Each structure stands twice: as C-alpha cells, then as structure tokens.
C-alpha cells in the first residue's frame, strides 16, 4: 500500500497537467454514462409504451399476417378461433383487425390502414370507447394526433373513405372524425384510421374476423394453443432493441473518440513523465525500490487518473445527470418520422450496473494505457537511470 500513497503524492505534486488529464477523462466518463443512460431509457420507455398501447404481453397473429410483407396485408384476416373465447370473455384478450383502405381528404387520395378494435376493450391503452358514438349517419372514426395533423383534419371533419370488401367489391362511405387520440406510440397513429371492430367487420363483410389478438399485459396465465401463431412482447419489440442498439453504436463512436483523446493524454503524460523522471527512478532504486515496484508505482500513477476522474465526474456530473433525469429530454416532433415508438419526453436510466461497468471499463483501459510506456522500465539499470540515461 506504500506505492498507493507514493503514487498519490506524486500525482498531487504534478500540477496542472494532472488536472487536465483528470478533467478530460471525467468528461469521457460522463459522456459514456449519459449516452448509455439515454439509450437505456429510450429502449425501456419505448418497450413500455408498446406494451401499454398495442402489444400487451403478446399477440396472436392469423396465419397470413406478416408485418414485413405488405402484399400479405389484403388477406391478413381470419375467423377468430373459438379457443380464445374464454380469455376474450375474461377481458384479457381483444381482437384487432387491419384492413387496407384509402381516404380522400381535400380530394386527394391517401392510402391508409383501417384498424378495427372493440370499443369496449381495456387491453390496449387507447380511447377506443370514444369511437362508439352516433355520427350523423357517417362512419365514426378516430385518428391519432400525428395522422390528423398530416392530413390536416380536425375533430368533426368528414372525409370519404374507400375500401374493397371481402368479396373484392369496391365500396365507399363518408367518415367523420369523432375523436383525436393523443398517444406516444406513433405506430398506431401514423397512417391509421381507427373504428369500432364490429363496424369494420360489417363494412368489409368479414364477420367475426380479425388480424390479431392482443393479450393483456397483466395476463400471466396459460396461453391457449391455436393455429394462430403467438408472439411474445419480447419478440415483438426486437425491432426497438435493434434500433436502439444501432443508434447506441453510432453514439459509441462519439465516446470512443472522447475516450481515445483522454487515453492519448494519459499515455502522453506517462511517456513524458518516464523520460523526465529517469533520475528520480534511479534515486528510488538507490533507495532500495525494485524495478517491479517502480513499474507498479508508475502504472498506478496512471490509473489514478481514472480514479480521480471518476470522483470528479461524480462531483459535477451527479447533479447534472440528476437534473437531466428529473426534466427528461424533450424529443422534437419529427422524430416520429423514424417510425419508432418514442415518448415525447425521454427519461434516461442510470443503473448501478451502467455506472460501475463504465468505471471498470475506463479503469482497465487507463491502466493498460499507463502500463504500456512503463513496461520498458523492466530493463532499466540503476546506474543508467541515475545518470539520466534510458537503457
């Protein structure tokens, strides 16, 4: 433990350069924790929103439905299997139907997804009950706020809606917007026109059919066997995780560069200090220090930058991160265009594992960086060192 004390003394006495290194490292520390916390928060909140608003604890899909194959969409509906009845009656499962259609706001055609959900359902956090109103003979429909904005309609507006029914015959009616839904989930908003499932089944002549069944997020009981395939929330949110991973690896380039700069500063300081302090090293050996201890001492001096940086980062970073955590980060509206489920305000998540993991990673890299130039002291002769020579 003597060398710990010595390393600390040396560092303390080394002046401004030490503090610069520590400062740069502490910024790298914070940037890593901040960015990672942001991505963790983004991922968790996105998944939670998905779970809450449209994915539940999982979904059953009818055989033909494949979200990655748009061509399958016209046929992606089937009669709801009777095995689901008990869960439907218990209110922990609800059908949703997707159907292709078009609308004509301002006399321009826009392809949309007609979506039917039971107005009595409570499985998805969506104001479906608002769709169950009389609309002066029009079809009552609900839009998300993004959709309403993009086609420039408001509550009470009427537009023509067109679709082909189950037999392939074209049909058209006027629809009235009876509610504008505010949701964090852009995937149930952008391009969608919601209506009561019974109504959608009726106008498409697809009685008792649906595209999928959503299971309530709180349901933990047995899942019935059906010829509809089950997809758990985990599977359904793979996209989100992939997306966040992609984004965060973009971010890691940024903090990789920051780290590299910080490490370069440490490396540089080490090289310089070893060159400048040859005579001191000779003196230390004359006083009875072994080369091994010398190597440990100088490596430790380097890794102490990491320790001090962690402390410094905590001192000024903790309040910053705390503030950020309280206020969250307000996302710009056009983030919706990525087609990702994102909350309006992003709250970062700083876990103990994240902070400890970052500290450990930084400590290891700083220690290795410090050790590399120190390595060659293993061949240093005391007499050469005393004469200020490097062997």
């Amino acid at each position: 433990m003597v060398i710990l004390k010595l390393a600390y003394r040396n560092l303390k006495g080394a002046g401004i350069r030490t503090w610069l290194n520590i400062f740069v490292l502490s910024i790298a520390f914070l940037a890593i924790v901040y960015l990672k916390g942001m991505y963790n928060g983004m991922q968790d909140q996105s998944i939670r929103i998905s779970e809450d608003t449209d994915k539940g604890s999982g979904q059953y899909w009818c055989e033909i439905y494949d979200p990655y194959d748009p061509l399958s969409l016209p046929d992606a509906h089937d009669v709801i299997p009777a095995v689901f009845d008990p869960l439907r009656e218990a209110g922990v499962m609800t059908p949703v139907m997707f159907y292709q259609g078009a609308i004509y706001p301002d006399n321009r055609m826009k392809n949309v997804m007609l979506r039917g959900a039971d107005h009595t359902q409570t499985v998805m956090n969506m104001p479906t009950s608002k769709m169950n109103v009389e609309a002066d003979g029009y079809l009552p429909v609900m839009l998300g706020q993004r959709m309403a904005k993009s086609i420039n309609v408001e509550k009470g507006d009427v537009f023509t809606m067109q679709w082909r029914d189950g037999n392939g015959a074209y049909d058209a009616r006027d629809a009235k917007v009876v509610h504008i839904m505010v949701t964090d989930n852009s995937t149930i908003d952008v391009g969608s026109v919601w209506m009561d499932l019974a109504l959608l089944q009726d106008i498409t002549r697809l009685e008792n059919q649906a595209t999928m069944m959503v299971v309530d997020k709180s349901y933990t009981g047995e899942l019935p066997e059906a010829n509809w395939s089950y997809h758990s929330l985990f599977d359904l949110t793979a996209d989100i995780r992939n997306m966040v991973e992609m984004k965060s690896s973009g971010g890691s380039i940024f903090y990789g560069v920051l780290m590299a700069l910080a490490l370069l500063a440490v490396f540089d300081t080490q090289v310089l200090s070893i060159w400048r302090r040859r005579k001191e090293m000779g003196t230390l050996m004359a006083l009875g220090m072994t080369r091994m201890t010398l190597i440990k001492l100088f490596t430790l001096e380097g890794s102490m930058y990491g320790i001090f940086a962690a402390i410094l980062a905590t001192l000024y970073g903790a309040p910053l991160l705390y503030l950020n955590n309280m206020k969250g980060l307000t996302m710009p509206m056009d983030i919706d265009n990525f087609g990702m489920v994102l909350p309006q305000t992003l709250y970062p998540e700083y876990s103990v594992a994240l902070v400890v993991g970052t500290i450990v990673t930084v400590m290891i890299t700083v220690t290795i960086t410090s050790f590399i130039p120190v390595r060659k002291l293993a061949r240093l002769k005391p007499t050469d060192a005393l004469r200020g020579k490097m062997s």
Partner: protein
Amino acid sequence: MTEVKLIHAHDLVKAYPVADREFVALKNISLEIGKGEFTGLVGPSGSGKTTLLNVIGSLDIPSSGSVTVLDSKIEALTHKQAAQLRNLHIGFIFQTYNLLPVYTVAENVEFPLLLLGKSTDERKDMVAEALEWVGLTEKAEMRPAQLSGGESQRVAIARAMVKKPALVLADEPTANLDAKNSHHILQTMEKLNAELDTTFLFATHDEKVMQYMKRIISLEDGEVVKDEIK
C-alpha cells in the same frame, strides 16, 4: 584490534563495452574497508571512483572478481536482493542531491522508511531525529525547490542516515557547495560517524573533503595507486 570488515573487493574488474572494444574502468581492485571507517576515494576525473562506489553500492555488478558487502556477494545478487541490500543497509548521497521534488523535506527523509515498512509512529520519530542531526527541523514542511544547495544536501544526508544504515556512500557530496556549506556537511557526517559508528565511503577530488578523511584511497586509471591511513 580485530576490525570487522564491511567491504571486501578482490580482483574487481569493471569493463564497459565501448563501440566494438571494451573500456576497463576498474582494473583488479582489491581492498578492504572496516566498520566505522571514514574513507575517501580520490583521483582524477575518469579514474573510476563513481564506478567503484556503484559496484559497492550494488547498483552495478563487477565484470569479474568479487565484491562482498555486509556478507552479500554483489556479483551473485539478483536485482531484487540488491534492492533489498540497499534498502536495509546502504545510504546514498549524490552530488546533485537527488531529492524528490514533489515531496516535502520530511517526506523525502521519510521515503526509505516507507520502503522498509515502518509504522507511522516509528517513521515520525525517526524523521524528527534525522532532521535534528542535520539541523533542519524548522524546514520539515518545505519543498526541495525552496532550499539552498547546502540545505538540500543536508536533507539528502538525513535521508541516507534516517534508517541508520551500516554503510553510507557519498559521491562528490560537496561538488555543488561552497566552502562554508562543505565544511558544515562534512562536520555533520563526521559527527554521525562518531555517534552511530556508520561507515562512510566518499568519492571526491575536493581538498576540503580529503582533510576530514581518516583514510584515503587513491585511484588512477582504474587502479589503486595509494592507500594511506592518517
């Protein structure tokens, strides 16, 4: 009087490779130095004084021959054993003081004790004692940069002496000092030699130093040409 011999050198040769030849800095040196001696190695520049001190101090190894210091055969020591020998028994004083600049005076003196693993209390007492020997108790909290040359060298003496080593090796300890400081330093060492029976071996060509020596070994071109006891 049966003297305990602290240092034995027998046919000591030290050669350095220079270009493709060898330069022999020490040629078949044989000598003995007893416990408590106050001895000077003198000779012109390049005669091998520093080289001999370094070998005796186990900072370097002989090319051939044998050197025994405190029952340790220098040529047979591993790097670690040599460090151990220096740590426990040998104190060094350099021409350029070689104080650790970021440490205070007290911390500089404390350093060998840290390496020896002494407790905090022991260290405190021993440092205080050593600073008293050299009359620097007042300046304990100063940094080397704030000291005069003479004071710096006294700190170096305190650092070499604090662990009460059997042997102190001093290479041109007065070369950077004026006459007044030189005498002060030498008187300090003379006193410690008498009080603690520490063996001192100097390398010098300073006349002022020589007048304090009880024995003078003259080197020339790496050979002992004279060895006189006063």
